[in-house]
């Protein structure tokens, strides 16, 4: 754990006890069993805790506590797989508005993000693989505004969102990072289809077919939106890093607990050296992953020069660890780990989705190499 301020420690403890009280993994299980992915009461309770305002400046009703602080909450959510639009709306969506939004946009939307009545969702991906530089969705000039056509997929919290933040091409060639613009599109103006994925959470494919928006929909600068997209994506990646850290830490704790209690051949299985060493390796991996996750969030808060590098490091290294940890969670639990009745499967399923979100490990290793000049 990074050296936390007193305020951060209090907030983390609050999140910890809230999650074990209101949002433990059973909460997710009940929702999944009911075929749902959104619990309005849970959401209202999160709003009440003030977490929706952590990244929002005080003049728009937030507390402006920063990314490392939000990461502490995400880590706790990640531990218990607590489902909610908190990350998509109050972290990713709020980041886009705070970074690129006009005064009017911030005044109109941020207070509602904080009170939970507005749910934002970032719509960037179009293909099975993350390639944010090549938006194909078109935004054609239409008077002072635009007419949109295209399809966005893998949109986190896409079924509950009230407003989408869409990257669209206003100029340039298809694979050209230049010529992109970020636009606010009300959910009522798009067609959305649920994309039920393995983790049982809320994703949508959204279709823009002749949707029109006015010039006030532009976030940041027209045609130069990719710089903003990348900055927002990096923040999102660091946030996923924090959530993955929590998910893998919980998977580690469950595994360690099992090693100490499960008996075979007349002794606890943790007394076998092969498993003791595996646990030691995993613990080392967890410590290294934690350093990467926290360093990325701290870099964002400090505006460090190497923020992009650290965000890719976090996404790749924590992703690699979660991948391995989620596999070992099942392996070490043996048969019980394969049953739906036990929670291990939830962690494996969530792991694979989080790994893919905003670029998988391979994507970020390639990006990191480019940032390091080779």
């Amino acid at each position: 754990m990074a050296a936390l301020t007193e305020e951060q420690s209090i907030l983390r403890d609050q999140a910890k006890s809230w999650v074990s009280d209101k949002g433990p993994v059973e909460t997710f299980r009940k929702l999944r069993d009911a075929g749902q992915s959104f619990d309005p009461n849970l959401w209202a309770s999160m709003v009440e805790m003030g977490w929706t305002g952590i990244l929002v400046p005080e003049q728009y009703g937030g507390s402006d506590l920063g990314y490392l602080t939000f990461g502490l909450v995400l880590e706790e959510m990640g531990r218990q797989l607590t489902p909610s639009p908190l990350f998509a709306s109050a972290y990713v969506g709020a980041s886009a508005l705070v970074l690129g939004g006009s005064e009017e946009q911030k005044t109109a939307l941020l207070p509602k993000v904080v009170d939970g009545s507005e749910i934002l969702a970032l719509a960037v991906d179009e293909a099975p693989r993350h390639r944010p530089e090549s938006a194909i969705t078109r935004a054609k000039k239409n008077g002072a505004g635009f007419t949109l056509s295209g399809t966005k997929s893998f949109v986190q919290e896409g079924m509950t969102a009230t407003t989408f933040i869409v990257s669209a091409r206003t100029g340039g060639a298809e694979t050209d990072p230049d010529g992109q613009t970020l636009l606010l599109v009300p959910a009522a103006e798009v067609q959305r289809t649920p994309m039920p994925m393995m983790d049982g959470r809320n994703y949508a494919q959204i279709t823009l077919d002749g949707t029109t928006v006015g010039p006030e929909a532009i976030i940041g600068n027209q045609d130069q939106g990719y710089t903003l997209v990348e900055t927002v994506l990096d923040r999102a990646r660091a946030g996923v890093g924090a959530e993955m850290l929590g998910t893998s830490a919980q998977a580690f704790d469950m595994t360690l607990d099992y090693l100490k209690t499960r008996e075979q051949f007349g002794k606890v299985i943790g007394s076998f050296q092969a498993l003791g060493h595996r646990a030691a390796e995993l613990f080392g991996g967890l410590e290294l992953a934690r350093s990467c996750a926290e360093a990325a969030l701290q870099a964002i808060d400090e505006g460090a020069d190497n923020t992009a590098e650290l965000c890719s490091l976090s996404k790749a290294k924590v992703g690699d660890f979660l991948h391995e940890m989620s596999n070992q969670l099942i392996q070490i639990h043996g048969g019980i780990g394969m049953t739906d009745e036990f929670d291990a499967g939830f962690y494996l399923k969530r792991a694979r989705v989080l790994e893919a979100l905003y670029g998988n490990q391979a994507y970020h290793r390639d990006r990191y190499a480019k940032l390091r000049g080779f």
Partner: protein
Amino acid sequence: MTAEANLEAVRDDARTWIESNFPKSLKGYEVGLEGGGDGSSDFETWRQKLAEKGWGAPTWPKEYGGAGLSHPEAKVVAKALAKAGAFNPIPMLAGMGVTMVGPTILEYGTDDQKERHLPGIASGAVRWCLGLSEPNAGSDLASLQTKAEDKGNRYVVNGQKVWTSGADISQWCGALVRTDPEAGKRDGISFVLLPMDQPGVETRPIKLISGASPFCETYFNDAYAEKNDLLGDVNDGWSVVKRLLQHERQSQTSARRPDAVTEESLGEKAKRYVGVSKDGTLSDADLRQRLVKHLMDEQAHYLTISRIQAEAKGNVEVSAAASILKNSNTRVAQTKAELTMEIMGSQGLGWEGDLFTEEERNSVRELLWGKAMSIYGGSYEVQNNIISKNILGLPETTQKG
């Protein structure tokens, strides 16, 4: 004074002192592993000045030759030295003295032992070696056979030690010896301090796969250790050595961090030897993958060191994390050596001669020598035993002593 203002004052004081005391002739001088000087009087003068200032072992109490600095203050001094192109050869000159023997004497020694031994270490005047491993006691250190018999006013020591680094040039040795052959494996062991310059001690250097090495075999034939040089209680040497080994791990958690300004990065080296494709990426795609993984592991390792330091508010105690960091450091360093050799291709295999640059010849030796990292100071596997038992609380997996 606030903590920051205090560090600032230490920094100013250090800068001024170095400016007026560090001989310009020594600027940029590279201290070898043994800390040997260039024979110049300037080098000797500089060592004496450092010793007087207490900077040889800056965190030790002033009465024993240190400067009584806190860890953050000592760090500031080290940085100021590096910034001025100066150096502190004393930890190398003292062998195992500053990093391991001294801190253990500070914890377990009598006042008399502290007074007799610590100032010599802190000034770099006395070099220490450690007699721990034996031919049949490596990872299973507690099975050691070297015995020390109580002969009234002295212990008489007989047996053989191995991997005693610097034994042939040391003046003193800290040795683990069996004082009660009847007691349980770990219960009959004591830790004694003995002078190396005596007829009963013989050393033979060991040549390694990488060439000459600082390691020796050390033979004790009726060697003596004075009674007042028993460190800790008799038959309680195991707890002394456990602490000493924690200090060792602590000193092995971090390889020398590459100097970002002067040192060519591995990525740059790869581009120079391997070449780049049209898109500017390394033309060997497989190597590129492994290189980026390695650089990420390296960065994660350094971030972990910083994080642990930050959590401890700069005051890093020998701790549980040391085992994790030692293994992580080993993996990073060994992978780096393998990649460096691979990047250089056939040039990286050069053993001697002018057809190879010094850098290329060194890459072979670094790779070979680096294999020792996962063996010494508690092997990679022993560290994993420590992590699983002491940190994770899993049951003991190895034979109990």
